[in-house]
């Protein structure tokens, strides 16, 4: 059943596949970002109680969702890397970590900027905000751990284990607003009931989420390719690749 996947355990095949996929993700990112941001910031109606301030949702929510999506991706890759001992999967973990960290930072930053005018405080130590901050620290821990080893095989394994340890945080972030009293409001979209946002506000938000997701794909693929080249720089296929590029 999984036979078709086997060639991609070879670095050069994965490198080529990532290179083929990347432009498609980029093609999807750019128009959806432009449409989403213009629609959201200029044409979507203002909120009945927060006025125009609510528009920060078009950055905040996609960034927060993708911060968690990036982590889920890393956790799956780490799991595969540890069990099947695939170096490539561990490289994917290392490739995705900084991207996820940046998304988390964006979510925290826009959240603070939103909190000040609406709640009256930049930061509150409630369960949602704190667990999101822990996610940022976990990301930074993974990046630091991966870079702490000069032996990258060992580094990949250590980073993968830390990634799996941190995965506990994901359900905590998501359900923090349900389990505890928080200042942060509950989920708007990611719940089983109807999303509690008007349709004309929801559509640009979904477009922005799509755009952030495809951009996450672009960044991970790009970094994955760089990681591959760096890790395999003395291998025959990389040397051959460089020679071909050098001539052309």
């Amino acid at each position, binding site marked *: 059943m999984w036979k078709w996947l086997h060639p991609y355990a070879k670095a050069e095949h994965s490198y080529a596949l990532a290179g083929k996929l990347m432009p498609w993700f980029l093609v999807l990112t750019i128009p959806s970002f432009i449409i989403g941001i213009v629609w959201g910031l200029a044409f979507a*109606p*203002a*909120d*009945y*109680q*927060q006025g125009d301030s*609510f528009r920060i*949702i078009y950055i905040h929510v996609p960034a927060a969702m993708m911060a968690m999506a990036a982590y889920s991706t890393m956790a799956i890759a780490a*799991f595969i890397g*540890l*069990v*099947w*001992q695939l170096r490539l999967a561990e490289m994917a973990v290392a490739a995705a970590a900084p991207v996820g960290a940046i998304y988390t930072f964006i979510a925290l930053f826009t959240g603070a900027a939103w909190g000040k*005018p*609406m*709640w*009256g*405080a930049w930061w*509150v*130590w*409630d*369960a949602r905000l704190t667990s999101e901050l822990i996610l940022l620290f976990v990301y930074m821990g993974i990046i630091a751990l991966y870079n702490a080893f000069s032996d990258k095989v060992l580094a990949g394994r250590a980073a993968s*284990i830390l990634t*799996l*340890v941190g*995965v*506990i945080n994901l359900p*905590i972030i998501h359900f923090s*607003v*349900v*389990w*505890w*009293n*928080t*200042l942060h*409001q*509950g*989920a*708007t979209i990611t719940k089983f009931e109807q999303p*509690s*946002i*008007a349709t*004309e*506000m929801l559509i640009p938000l979904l477009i922005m989420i799509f755009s952030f997701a495809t951009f996450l794909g672009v960044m991970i693929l790009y970094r994955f390719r760089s990681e591959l080249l760096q890790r395999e720089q003395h291998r025959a296929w990389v040397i051959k690749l460089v020679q071909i590029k050098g001539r052309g």
Partner: protein
Amino acid sequence: MNPRRKKRLLITCSLIFGLSLAMGLTLFALQQNIDLFYTPNEILEGKNETGVKPEIGQRLRVGGMVLTGSVKRDPDSLKVSFDLVDNKAGQVTVYFDGILPDLFREGQGIVAQGTLKSKNSVDAFEVLAKHDEDYMPPEVADAVKGMSNLKTEQ
């Protein structure tokens, strides 16, 4: 699946399971400390989970809805007092001296931080507005008036 992989699969799964269990127990034990605020009912009757009542003079946060018609402003200063209610029987009076957030109004969810002055009153030094997760244009809000913006805490 060869035995070595099977062994690694087992180790990895038990790592995740063990950690989730440890984390789950930790959070369960810390349950009452992770809540950001007491609801008015919890101040009067004690925490929902443990029944622990806050003591007078204790620093705490109280979160609830501003009772309509309860906001009293001092004409000469920024002093203001209002009652917070929840979806149970609790009602707590909050005294505050300062600038209220823009979203503050009757029927709005509020989290106030301060010290418990008497059984059912809080001297607040910070008042934060809590908004809900519903977003809609003003026209829609007018149409469903009194429904969504009067929602209580979960």
